[in-house]
Structures are given as C-alpha cells and as structure tokens.
C-alpha cells in the first residue's frame, strides 16, 4: 500500500498547535519515554506508531496530563502544559479519545457526547453549584443539542437516544470522536481509533478525519497498526523503546530500514 502525503507541502504553513520537546518519563529505573520531540501543525494529521511497549501510551498520558513528565516541555498552542492536570489541557483546546472507549454504558449516546461541550461551564466549585441549580430549572442545552445532531449526522451516528451498551465497538468509537469534537478542539488526539472496529467504522472514521482537518484542527493518531494509519496521515512518527526511531511521510516511513527493524525485527530482510 503506497500513499503519498500529497497535501503535506501545503499544510506545513499551519501554526504549530502541539509540540513536545525532549519529553522524558521514567518509572524507577525504566525509561518509558526518552527525549521525544514532535510537533503537529494546524490542518495536519500525524500518526504516532510503534509496536506494543514502544512508549506510545505513556507519551499520550504525559501529553494529556494524566501523568507528569520528568523532563521536557509540552505546549498546546502557545500554552505551556507541562505539569498541568488533564482538565487544563482540555481548556487549552485539546481533545482526545481513549484506547478503550470510555463511555457510560447505561447512558444515552446524546448524554455521552454532551459532556464534551460543557467543560467551560464547570470552571470552579461555585460555577458547578450554579450549574446544578440552573439544571434543576432549565436544561439549557438547546444550542448544544443542535450541534450534537449536526455532528451525529456528519459522523453517521444514528439513534442519539439509544444506550451506548447497544452500540457496536465501531459506533462507540464514533461517539467518542463526536464527544471530542463537540467543542471544536484545536488539537485532537485519537488513541487507537481503529482497534477492533469493523471496515465500515474505518471508512467512517477516515471520512470524519478529513473533514476535521479541513477546519484547521491538528490531529495526532496513535496506533500500532501502521498500514491503516499510513493511508490516512500526512506524517508518521515511529516510536521504539521509548524514543523516536523515525519521522517522515508515510511513503518514506514504509520504505525505511527503521520501520522494518522495528516491526519485523533486526534480522528480517
């Protein structure tokens, strides 16, 4: 499968929305992430690939603020994120999906999406309390519901009032994407969006992604399956043993020795 990152030249002019510089994270003596630097620009899709145990998940956790980096510097737009809790990342314009869909199974599709759009209303304890009081009297979700309906339509999600438990895994991933997109993020991180999905889900996801980037969003796709990701992204970042092994266009990456070494072992030829 060969794919040429045709549009990459144009998109290079976009501003840098996510940047990691020399990020490192170790547990005890184990260095899970070593001096990783990468950046994602507006309107660009970057794939972060590597085999299991390459340090992808740790890097994602560090970027999202779920774990704190030992060294290095992470920025979303111009905002320094290092050491901030994950909810600050969201307020800086960062959205994500999860490797295992994080959805409340006994709640509806609409409700699971809705939370993606209300973060700024819950900024402080007092505002949370205000939301509780207001919520008891007036739902105040008219505009949000319209946007949810639009998004659902775009992403091909049907039956907003179904319980999430009734959805297929592919549909659940779409719900996560909708949640992440509800408040038009500047940076979107998709964590293994294709794992376990059916082919229809993959094509839906691909369509959705191209629309998202058109709106100037920076997208980072994390996956261990290089084949699917390569067809989709402008650039690939290959991780191995905690460090970046290769960066470049998908075509370059697939042809590279590093890729072969990482995926097929040093002896493979």
């Amino acid at each position, binding site marked *: 499968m060969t794919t040429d990152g045709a549009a990459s030249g144009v998109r290079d002019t976009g501003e840098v929305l996510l940047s990691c510089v020399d990020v490192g994270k170790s547990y005890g003596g184990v260095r899970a992430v070593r001096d990783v630097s990468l950046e994602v620009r507006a309107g660009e899709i970057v794939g972060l690939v590597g085999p299991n145990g390459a340090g992808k998940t740790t890097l994602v956790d560090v970027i999202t603020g779920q774990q704190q980096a030992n060294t290095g510097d992470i920025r979303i737009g111009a905002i320094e994120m290092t050491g901030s809790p994950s909810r600050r990342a969201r307020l800086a314009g960062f959205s994500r999906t999860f490797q295992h869909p994080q959805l409340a199974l006994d709640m509806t599709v609409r409700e699971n999406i809705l939370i993606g759009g209300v973060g700024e209303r819950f900024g402080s304890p007092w505002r949370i309390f205000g939301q509780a009081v207001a919520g008891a009297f007036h*739902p105040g979700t*008219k505009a949000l*519901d319209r946007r949810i309906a639009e998004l659902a339509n775009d992403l091909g999600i049907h039956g907003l*009032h179904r319980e999430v438990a009734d959805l297929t895994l592919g549909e659940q991933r779409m719900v996560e994407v909708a949640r992440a997109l509800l408040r038009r993020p500047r940076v979107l991180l998709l964590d293994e969006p294709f794992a376990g999905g059916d082919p229809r889900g993959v094509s839906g996801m691909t369509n959705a992604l191209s629309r998202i980037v058109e709106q100037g969003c920076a997208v980072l796709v994390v996956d261990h399956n290089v084949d699917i990701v390569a067809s989709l992204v402008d650039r690939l970042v290959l991780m191995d043993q905690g460090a970046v092994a290769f960066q470049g266009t998908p075509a370059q990456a697939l042809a590279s020795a590093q890729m072969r070494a990482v995926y097929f072992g040093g002896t493979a030829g």
Partner: protein
Amino acid sequence: MSRYPMRTTAGWIAIAAAAGLLLSGCGSDDNAGGAGGDDIVLGMITDTSGGASAYAPYTTVGIQLAVDEINAAGGVDGKQLKVITENDGSDTTQTPTLTRRLLENGADVILMNSGSASAISGRTVCVEENVLCVAPTNLSADIVKAPGNENIYILGPTSEGIGESFAAGMSKAGYKKLAVIADDVPTIQGYVPALVGAITDAGIKEVAQEKIAADASDVSAQIARVKAAGPDVVLVMSLGGQTEALVQNALHQQLPDVQRFSLASIGNQPTTWDLADKGALEGLVYVGSIDPGNERTTEFADKLAKKGGDHSELTAYGVQGYDSVYLVKEALTKAGSADDKAKLNETFQQISGYQPHYGQKDFTLSYGKDKHVGSDGNCGLVLATFGADNKPGDPWPVYQPSC
C-alpha cells in the same frame, strides 16, 4: 417538551401503582378500625424488641391481669375492657404514629408501656387528641413537664423522688463523696440530672460521673477513673442486664469497701443476678417499689403466681401495670362512659388517695390539674439490699423513705 426526554419510562406507572396500593390500604384500614363498639378499648404502646423490652413484658402481664379481673367482675358499667397493642421497639420516630393508629383503631385510653423517650415522643398526640394517657412504669418527670402535659400521667415516685430518697439515705449514713456510673442509653441518661441533682442538693459532693456504652465489653477505664476520684459511695444507673453486671463485678473487685447503690432495674431482673460474679452484689442497696410487708403487694403476688406463665415473677413493673388499669377504671367509673375523652381526662384528675399495690403500706396516689405524678410522697419506694447469694434480701436498715 420532547426535547426533554425522561428515560424513566415507567417511573410514573410505578408511582401510580404505589398510589393504588396506598388507596387499597385505605380501604382495609377502615375495616380494621372496627373495634367493637361495646368494649372499652385500652390502647397500649409496648416494646418487644427495643431497649424497653427488658421490662415492658412484665408490665403487660400486670395490665392483662387487671383487665381479666375487671372483666370477670362484670367490666366497667357493663362494658368489657379490651387491650390492643402496637410495638414501637423504643423507636421514637414511630411512637406518635402508632399512638394515633391505636386511637384510629378505637382506643379510648392510651397506656405508654415503652421507654421514657417514647412517652415523651408520644405525649403530643395525647394532648392534640385530648385523650387520657398513662405511663405506668416510666420514672422521668420530663414526661409530665409543662407545657404539653395536660393529658399524660405517670405513677411515680419520679426519678427526683428516687434522688431525694438516695440523698436522705446517703446523708443519714454519713457519705460525703459520690461517684455516678451510668450507661449511655437515652432513658437512663435522662434520669441522671434529676437523680444526681437531688443528691448534690443534699450537700453530697459528686466527685465523678462516668458513662458506659450500653454494649460495652470493658469498663476498667471508667472504674479506674472512679477509683482515682476516691468516692465513699457509688451510684450505678443502668437498664440492667450485662452492663450492670459488668460494672458491679468491677466495683466489687476494684473498690470492695465502697458502698454501692443502684436502681430498680437490678432488683427486678433475676437474669442480671446470675451474670454477676459470686457474691459481687452483696451489700448493694437498690431502690425498689416492692415492700414484702405490704399486704396489697403479697395479694397481687399471689394472683400473679396463680395466673402463671412467662413474666409472672413479682416485679414493680407488673404491679404498676396492674395499678394503672385500676386507676383508669376509677376514672371511667366516675366519667360514666368512655365516650367523652375530655371528661375522662378530667375525672382522672379527680382521683385521690388511691391505694396502689406497690410501695410501703401508707403509700397513695392522687392526681390533679397540676399534679400529673401520682405519688403522694416517697414512701412508694423501698430501699433494699442484696444478700451474699446475689439475691434481694432485707430492707436497708439505715433509712427508708417516708411520706
């Protein structure tokens, strides 16, 4: 509205079903309310499962004995007495509701045979419904404290009376420093201030006051504190049972030379005597209401023994239950019928000089508009001692309350 979906598809159906259930409950309740129109109904709040269940059954036996006796003798003005009961388990949240339910089921008079706290919780009902309420065994003067006492009566002597008797006895015996050990049950804690107040008013100094958790398994810390305070007399207050035994054993062990006093509960509970170590109760003075020299008491004891069955041992509770029914009978006779509840309350207040079956020979009960405690003086009490066999024995030779 459709924008506002409720996922509780069936919530309201269930509510409707529940409401239906309630309605059907309406119907059955009305039927259940049919206490025979020809009977005079005594509604009794009792406790078979809570804190007062240790003594309430004795009272019930006394009450039933009196009712049977009166019915056998032709009833009151040709009408038979009938007892209906509700169990509140000493849970004061339930008492008012159950009291009202007794009234709904036809009760003409209420007997409060549960804890003092229950009586207090239920007395608002007595006033609001203007119905005569008698608490046969409760000792707390708070039950009949104004305001809100218009319809409730106790027999007495109250905890204050007990305090006065203790005070007089302790003074006469020359004690100076008192230590109090009480369990933390609300009923007992309610007695503490009245009792201790009366004793300290008599010039005896309170050097220690200790609380014991009702389900305590260890009292050594409290006993050590008492010991450190150096009292020459100790007053133990509990509902009886294991807690009392625990304390008495420890006192017997740790402060063998200090005189001990206790409440009626230990005198009335043979099971507690067995829990105490051998000889641990010897010399203990308790305040009882049973005077072996009172002929009326022995007469009652004989009837009770003849009747037999559970809880037919002679206790003050049984006598007081028995007497409370006869008090009610006197009011009923005077009022002519039970139909006018307000009048029944008034005639109860006219009772004077009733000779109860407990206390000393000269003891009488009288009531009045402002006299809701029946006892005419403290000779309703008897101070008795325990013998070496852990059983109640002779009257305390030092002092006996008088009227």
